[in-house]
């Protein structure tokens, strides 16, 4: 598996993705974008791409800390704001989510994390209306495939420039675009509770899983092919099962078909229809 090469030409990626943001946003009738900045690498990269596509003055960066969010997160988000010169606002979500948390003192970290992710979605979509801008997504291909995202939470967006880049590739592009060093090198975290890291929670590293996903998805290897390529059986099975079980997050809810023509099955148009 050492021969799996996830290197990308970052100039080409940058050109295609900034063109995508600019074109699709304008076709939808918008000039502005809104990006939720967590302090992490994905949202930083989305913000850099949006600023390049639209001009920094047309991108609103929104920081949405919870009281236990790490100070680093806020500070790193501020580095992005300062470096790009984008307008920014900070809207804490503590007062939004606390009443719900207090409703059930036994609430698990998972539930609390989902509530925070969805509260941030509410704030972002509200700012979308205030700033007259579309919400730019920050989900990468690794987390989409693993389902490591909150449905209708951090996965909610109007368009997603990063969804076909593995985390490893996000890192390459982020470095090439000048995302500040501390953001590039810190361990990825959803920062939903203290000490949480993506890799700790997932039980494997992005470097490992990206290679496996690349073989399974992009190169159409069977799970058995991946094991023969050198991945452990347990790891392959775990990842395959994660992909399967999270597929509901990657598709719209199925509509029960009754009529001759049904949205989603035989009423087929691109979103860019007529533009």
């Amino acid at each position, binding site marked *: 598996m050492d021969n799996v090469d996830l290197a*990308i*030409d970052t100039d*080409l990626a940058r050109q*295609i993705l900034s*063109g995508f943001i600019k*074109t699709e946003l304008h076709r939808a009738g918008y000039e502005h974008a809104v990006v939720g900045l967590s302090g992490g690498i994905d949202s930083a990269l989305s913000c850099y791409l949006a600023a390049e596509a639209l001009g920094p003055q047309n991108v609103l960066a929104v920081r949405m800390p919870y009281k236990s969010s790490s100070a680093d997160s806020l500070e790193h988000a501020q580095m992005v704001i300062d470096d790009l010169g984008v307008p920014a606002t900070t809207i804490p979500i503590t007062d939004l989510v606390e009443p719900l948390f207090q409703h059930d003192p036994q609430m698990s970290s998972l539930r609390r994390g989902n509530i925070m992710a969805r509260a941030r979605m509410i704030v972002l979509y509200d700012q979308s209306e205030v700033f007259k801008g579309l919400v730019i997504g920050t989900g990468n291909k690794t987390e989409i495939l693993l389902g490591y995202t909150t449905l209708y939470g951090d996965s909610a967006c109007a368009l997603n420039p990063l969804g076909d880049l593995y985390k490893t590739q996000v890192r390459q592009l982020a470095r090439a675009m000048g995302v500040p060093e501390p953001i590039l090198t810190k361990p990825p975290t959803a920062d939903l509770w203290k000490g949480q890291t993506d890799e700790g929670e997932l039980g494997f590293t992005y470097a490992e899983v990206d290679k496996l996903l690349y073989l399974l998805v992009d190169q159409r290897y069977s799970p058995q092919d991946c094991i023969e390529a050198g991945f452990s059986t347990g790891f392959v099975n775990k990842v395959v099962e994660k992909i399967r079980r999270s597929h509901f997050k990657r598709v719209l809810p199925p509509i029960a078909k009754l009529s001759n023509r049904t949205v989603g099955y035989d009423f087929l*148009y*691109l979103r*860019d229809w007529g*533009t």
Partner: protein
Amino acid sequence: MKINLALAQINTQLGMVERNLEQHLQLIQQARQMGADLVVFPELSLTGYVLQDLTPAVAHAPVPEDPIFRKLFEESRGIDIAVGFVDEDSRHRFFIAAAYISKGTLVHVHHKLYLPTYGLFDEGRFFAWGDHVSAFDTRFGRMGMLICEDFWHASPPYLLWLDGADVFLFMSASPGRGLNARPQLESARWVEQLNQAYASLFTAFVAHSNRVGYEDGLNFWGGSTIFDPDGNLLIKAKYHQEELVMAELDLNQLHRTRARLPLLRDERTALVQRELDRILHHSSQMNR
């Protein structure tokens, strides 16, 4: 004889035929001012590519009574034009089509032969399969037109070659895919290799007009090219940007190249036919 061949590497609006026509008319005029004899537009240049259920709504017949084609016919008095459109035949089948128009008349229509229905493609769901491929005479000699997937298969260009085409017009709406460490997408590299290979194999001119822009998440990479009968690149448009490019095709190059390299003269068509016949009719093993 020399001809100036222009490639109109455009973006299109999805399902908006009249607005796309306006853009065509502007570029036709621009090409004429540049001294072009022929301007070639990309696949489905009048309609956009991922049409899905828009297909029946954007179909036009290439006849003078059609309001869209009437204007193209009028514009073709000073310059030949190849455009991409959706053709609806008299039995109401819809084809991905290309029309070659010259001096106010329709010279040739090609219906796409191969409809990719795999991966990100779903053409076979919405379109009928073209069933004929032939070269056609123009005021600049005999040409052949193919649309995108048609020339991913070796047989349509080969048949056009045998049918007399010395200038191949390939029209695409090729979605970019396969980002890796190279400065060129895999789909771009693949198509350029094919075009260069056909120019070399057939000692002919191969012009490829590809579109740019986005449709939802798909990007179209442009990079339109013309190769000469020696397999040399005459011109290449930028990737991902609208551009009108033009190259001079010296048709006497066909004489010089084929004097040196008589691949066409030596092509053993009777052997091909005999062996094809054997393979298709007498070999039950073929599809095992």
